């Protein structure tokens, strides 16, 4: 079924990176679609970062959303992660990875912002030690 890799009965699973699509033309078209979408999203990111046309406080959020969208495009069109049952293992591993990444980044930012907020400024601490 996929790319001619059928050593044993592989109907239940698909290796990450392999895809269902047959035929060189349609596979190249898939990569071209991904490339086009990625270029569009990247160009939007760089445009938004340098422009005065957009309400300034919205720019960081817009950049993060564009980045996540582009990661999704790469996962779907380049790594061929799908929602199909043969991809369940790959998606579950990815979901666990995303969970840990969110915990590490979100947790660090939250804790450090809280510490910054509650800690006395450094020059005052220095004065107390004198």
């Amino acid at each position, binding site marked *: 079924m996929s790319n001619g890799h059928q050593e044993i009965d592989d109907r239940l*699973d698909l290796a*990450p990176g392999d895809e269902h699509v047959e035929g060189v033309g349609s596979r*190249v078209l898939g990569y071209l679609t*991904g490339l086009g979408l990625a270029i569009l999203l990247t160009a939007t990111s760089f445009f938004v970062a340098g422009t005065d046309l957009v309400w300034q406080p919205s720019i960081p959020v817009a950049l993060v959303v564009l980045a996540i969208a582009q990661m999704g495009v790469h996962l779907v069109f380049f790594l061929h992660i799908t929602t199909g049952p043969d991809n369940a293992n790959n998606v579950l591993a990815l979901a666990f990875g995303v969970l840990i*990444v969110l915990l590490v*980044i979100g947790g660090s930012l939250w804790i450090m912002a809280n510490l910054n907020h509650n800690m006395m400024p450094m020059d005052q601490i220095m004065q107390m030690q004198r």
Partner: protein
Amino acid sequence: MTDTTMALAGSDPHQLGGMAAIAHSGPASKRIVTGYGFWIFILSDMVMFSAFFATYAVLLGQTAGGPSGRELFDLRNVAIETGFLLASSFTCGLASIAADIRSAKWFQIAMAVTCVLGLGFLIIEGREFASLVARGAGPTRSAFLSAFFTLVGCHGLHVSAGILWLLTMMAQVFTKGFRADIMRRVLCFALFWHALDIIWIAVFTVVYLLGSAA
């Protein structure tokens, strides 16, 4: 019974064949096991990068009176780097297709283009690092710059390792052909290279675009 199987097959785009396939399936093929294991490695690599990203985000303002991202980063360079890496991800995909149809010629061409684009990326990054150090903004200048060099340098090291792996795959396909074990390595290399591009999306957004806004 046959009717149900037929009906199932009609609404069964992945040809699972109902429960029959589950009952009779043996262990997964080596390609799936290897690919999945490497997928786990890539995800753990991303967890490692997330720690560097968290460090960078926390230390973004800690410039110790030194230059900030807004003064240091040249977004035009970053855009070119992004283009190189994105194009190399595309040609890496073409190399996977060429390997699947067993076309040695197109595989080598696509891999060579991927290699050139990857080297172009590394050269631009190396020049950026050298110019930062020359301007007195090396990794020892401030906590912000330490975090910057750790994160972006770690990605650069991954790209360097990827290029060494790429050249190894070109040589192995050239000498050994598209054997099953070589094809598994090509699969893992493609996963690695695409994953590097995904991490680069986070790098150019968080480090450069958000970093020069702050």
